[in-house]
């Protein structure tokens, strides 16, 4: 029986994962940690199998006490780190602290912890450098986006991913990094979800790249497999939906207007200012011009993960 600590437990992914773990006969209890108050959906969980704690993980002392107090009491064995800042426009040291420093601290503290043996980190496909001259299918060995001009959201994700990867093989922990395709859902920081919020979606003229999108069910399943599995590694987690951008716009019931690429960044920046939307074209420029599909063969081979839950289009019901 496994005892699991889940960070970011108040997010849609954290909630779904916590419920999925609690449904598993292999999980004894879950220590759910978030910066927000306990979500309503946890109210129906009975007994002592779920312990919910509000903790600011950017504070090293709070993080240490969480692991060496509640973590010790419960005998936590696995950490699933899922707490990353979601907004693309928020930048600065506070965001960096949550995205990167917390990841580093959590991993470092877990290595000293007597009962923790496994660390699962939810990374994202945004860490890859999309280049049309390379393979359309991105394997785990493909280059990462190390462009210093990339937005902080991308740079932080790459840094956090590398921070975890560099400990692999040197740490006594089993470390698993899941580079997940974009989860198309509300309140998860999905750029495409916000892109589809407009009735009219502008896409670069002459380009219609292939996208790969992940459903919450598949992501939860992949996280459960990684939590309850053995061994270390970096794994791509693709979704069941691989389709061109134009088809995705159509399935969402939106109107597409192709526009010259150089106009899109200023237009979407203006839209973000006026309407407060989170979508950043500069964050998505490469993948709106070039196809990038995650190659999930390693996850299939070693974790037994296969995407089987396609999205229900439109995946949000925004209107």
């Amino acid at each position, binding site marked *: 029986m496994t005892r699991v600590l889940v960070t970011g437990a108040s997010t849609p992914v954290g909630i779904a994962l916590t419920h999925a773990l609690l449904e598993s006969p292999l999980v004894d209890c879950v220590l759910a940690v978030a910066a927000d108050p306990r979500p309503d959906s946890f109210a129906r969980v009975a007994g002592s199998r779920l312990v919910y704690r509000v903790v600011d993980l950017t504070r090293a002392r709070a993080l240490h006490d969480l692991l060496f107090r509640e973590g010790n009491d419960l005998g936590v064995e696995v950490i699933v780190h899922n707490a990353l800042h979601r907004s693309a426009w928020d930048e600065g040291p506070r965001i960096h602290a949550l995205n990167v420093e917390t990841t580093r601290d959590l991993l470092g503290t877990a290595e000293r912890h007597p009962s923790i043996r496994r660390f699962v980190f939810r990374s994202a496909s945004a860490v890859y450098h999309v280049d*049309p*001259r*390379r*393979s*359309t*299918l991105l*394997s785990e060995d*493909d280059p990462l986006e190390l462009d210093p001009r990339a937005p902080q959201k991308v740079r932080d994700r790459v840094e956090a991913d590398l921070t975890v990867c560099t400990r692999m093989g040197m740490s006594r922990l089993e470390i698993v990094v899941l580079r997940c395709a974009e989860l198309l859902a509300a309140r998860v920081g999905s750029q495409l979800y916000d892109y589809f919020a407009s009735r009219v979606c502008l896409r*670069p*003229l*002459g*380009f*219609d*790249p*292939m996208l*790969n999108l992940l459903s919450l069910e598949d992501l939860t399943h992949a996280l459960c497999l990684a939590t309850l599995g053995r061994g270390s590694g970096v794994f791509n987690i693709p979704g*069941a*939906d*691989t*389709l*061109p951008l*134009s*088809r995705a*716009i*159509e399935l969402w019931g939106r109107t*597409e207007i192709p526009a010259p690429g150089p106009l899109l960044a200023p237009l979407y920046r203006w839209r973000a200012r006026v309407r407060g939307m989170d979508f950043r074209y500069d964050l998505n420029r490469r993948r709106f011009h*070039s*196809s990038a*599909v995650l*190659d999930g063969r390693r996850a299939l081979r070693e974790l037994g993960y296969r995407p089987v839950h*396609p999205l229900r289009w439109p995946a949000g019901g925004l209107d």
Partner: protein
Amino acid sequence: MRLRRQLKQAWIRAFCSAEERAALARLEYRDAGHGYDALGFDPESFAVALAACRLAYERYFRVTSSGAHHIPTRGPAILAANHSGLLPIDGAMIVADIARHTSPPRVARVIGDVFIPLMPWVGTIFSRIGVVSGSPGNFRHLLEGGDIVLVFPEGTPGIGKGFRKRYELQEFRVGHAELALRYRVPVVPVAVVGAEEAWPEIGRIDAFQPFGAPFLPIPATPLPLPVRFHIHYGEPLDLAAEFGDAADDPALVAEAALLVKGAVQTLLERGLSQRKGLFS
């Protein structure tokens, strides 16, 4: 998008017989969930392209082919052909010929140059009809998936060699030989006779490199000439049987590529000697 799909359907109905439509409906590809494969191939766009090529194949270039029984009906294979022309007409005619001579029709996935995806519209259209950019990852994915892959080992120097050097094979790149050895797949040599005279080039501008293309060719004629194309398929080469497990031996890989080049050269010479004239 919906209008585009309706236009495609109308086009297919107009230019394909009921028999051809039934054959195209049996086209085998790996649907990644929405009617496209992971690399962007769309069977409907492929059918539209085949229908569009029909006039060129049957009436303009009056393509004849021999040795089509050498094209594997199942499983992965690499087809290695000579290359020429300002536009990849040779590639289009080979793809159309393979679809006509296999049942169910097989899609030859053409390995294009890496600058193709950078080109607006061209990159998208090519990916929908099965062309993939020539990266080792894409090549591997296709072979592991059991596709037949059409390569032009001469690469860009093949299309830029000029009219005076027609049918003189340029240096073969070795990537196809390495992958054939690694995945133990047969290599079918292909010779296209006619294509190298179809659209002569009188010069090129090396300084102008649109979207990463190596040069801008200057054609001698505004349209390709109606030269007759003859496609010859040779007996499949089993490089793995010849060279063993040599995918990581550069010398043996280069030797394997030379073997393929020799087979294409032999086919070309035979095809040229059998040809009665440029237009017949």
